[in-house]
């Protein structure tokens, strides 16, 4: 498998911080004017804490990209940088650019970003606890003319029937999963052209997680591009064309989802597949594997370093 593909796409390629954005091997990211999301050399700090460094990432129009990474790797930070909500966490983009549809959106207020069609499902649900389910959905459609909103509402309710049943219950009283559904539904109300999903299946039952997966496929099919942060790597890699692996704030791996899914390191670390050194499948070139091990060590160290003084 490593043989036939061009050097660009062969195996999980490593975008070191110094090398420029995704190689031109992949036609869909070739043209920056593609109208998709373009992140270049992004660095983000929370006061003194550096959470992202030299991140290059692209989500072409109509594509689905996945971001994997351990806790604290910077996935949420990445989404915050796109949706312009860093300031709510005393964080800021210290260098690099974020562009959507060819227009810079770094430094643009969150609300403005939304009006450009970029909508985020925040980490940890964040439903409006004191408002009813129905009102939460209305809040989602604030930027949208009434007619479209009504239509969107239809879609969301058939997607998550429970929300219809609970329409007049206070969102804060919903179960964890129901809240998650509400959060996603609320985002869909706006009819986004780029959807940022931060761990959408968190706390969802398998069946429901599968449902979310289908939904993502659906809306993507309708032309919405998706940037998916997901701990459920299997699902993420199944959905995405291209995937990025963040480690301690840097893109450590990126490439076509399929290839990443195949890489033993990713399988071990993100799919949680236990695989003793002995029975590593033959034919996998040890290169990335070794790299992987080193990276693993380095990762472990820095990660501890991160939360020790």
């Amino acid at each position, binding site marked *: 498998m490593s043989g036939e593909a061009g050097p660009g796409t062969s195996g999980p390629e490593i975008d070191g911080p110094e090398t420029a954005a995704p190689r031109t091997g992949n036609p869909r990211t070739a043209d920056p004017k593609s109208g998709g999301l373009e992140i270049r050399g992004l660095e983000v700090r929370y006061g003194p804490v550096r959470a992202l460094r030299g991140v290059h990432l692209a989500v072409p129009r109509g594509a689905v990209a996945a971001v*994997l990474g351990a*806790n*604290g790797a910077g996935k949420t930070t990445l989404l915050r940088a796109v949706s312009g909500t860093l300031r709510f966490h005393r964080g800021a983009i210290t260098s690099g650019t974020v562009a959507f549809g060819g227009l810079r959106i770094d430094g643009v207020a969150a609300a403005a970003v939304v009006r450009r069609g970029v909508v985020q499902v925040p980490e940890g649900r964040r439903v409006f606890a004191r408002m009813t389910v129905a009102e939460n959905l209305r809040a989602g459609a604030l930027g949208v003319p009434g007619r479209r909103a009504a239509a969107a509402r239809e879609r969301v309710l058939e997607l998550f029937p429970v929300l219809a049943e609970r329409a007049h219950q206070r969102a804060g009283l919903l179960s964890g999963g129901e809240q998650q559904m509400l959060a996603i539904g609320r985002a869909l109300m706006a009819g986004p052209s780029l959807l940022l999903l931060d761990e959408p*299946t968190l706390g969802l039952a*398998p*069946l*429901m997680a599968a449902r979310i997966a289908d939904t993502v496929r659906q809306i993507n099919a309708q032309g919405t591009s998706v940037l998916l942060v997901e701990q459920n790597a299997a699902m993420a890699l199944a959905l995405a064309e291209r995937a990025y692996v963040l480690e301690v704030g840097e893109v450590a791996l990126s490439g076509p989802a399929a290839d990443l899914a195949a890489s033993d390191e990713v399988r071990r670390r993100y799919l*949680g597949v236990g695989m003793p050194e002995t029975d590593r499948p033959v034919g996998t070139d040890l290169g990335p594997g070794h790299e992987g091990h080193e990276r693993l060590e380095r990762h472990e160290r820095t990660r501890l370093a991160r939360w020790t003084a």
Partner: protein
Amino acid sequence: MDGMTHRRGVPRTPPTRRRRIPARNQPVGTVGGDGPAELVVGEVTVRFAGLTALDAVSFTVAPGSVHALIGPNGAGKSTCFNVLSGVYRATSGSVRFGGAELTSLRPHQVAALGVARTFQNIALSPHLTVRDNLMLGRHRLTRAGFVSAGLRLPSARREAVRHGARVAEIAEFAGVGDALSIPVGLLPYGVQKRVELARALCMEPRLLLLDEPVAGMNGGERREMADLIESVRESLGISILLVEHDMGMVMRIADAVTVLDFGRRIADGPPEEVQRDPEVIRAYLGDFGGPSGERGEA
């Protein structure tokens, strides 16, 4: 009053895959007998305005076992936890733990019986350091009140030191030993979940309730957490009731599984059986197993 015992415990082991936590004898004077006890949930019903969250649910958690409580979203799992820990009052039914009836108790009284829990949405004090959050776990085991703390009576000081040591031990065990002096709010989600588990352990519980302990973790971290939970059971021999949507994990560590759907119990038994139960597949797993199912197979 108790520290002596556990300071004489096994020397602190470095954080390795198979961590061991020195078992700790029940302190003299704390409420509730000793060792794990049986938890019997009997016909518990919980109604909220207009909906029945739990409908005559019964199951039993054998002493020292890991019991999983699974079911679709909104099935009533967390509600069940809230009843067990005294946060919600059951409309009817009984919950017996050891000799005690829990349904009539307030949360802190339940805690006093040695029932500890973690929350589905992290419930730590973001401004306090990990150490302080864990020390809170010792609340039920310590005595210092306003007066003795205010006057810094020797008893209070000694207590603080002793339990501080134990807290460090447990933190080490839970793999957050390096984070002790960091405000929890600054830690990544996954680490916060560990801290929550550690806080629950700091209560030296006889029954541990875990609400989605690995939600929001990636495969590797899930496995670590699973190991952690197993070693808890091994080294402390306490009963663990677990809510989790990650079937892989459930299958791996659960001795028994109870499945809820719309507040009713639809299955109960050993994991393999339950996993094969068509009802469960229809209501929860989905016939194809679903993405997390995949993870289950591995």
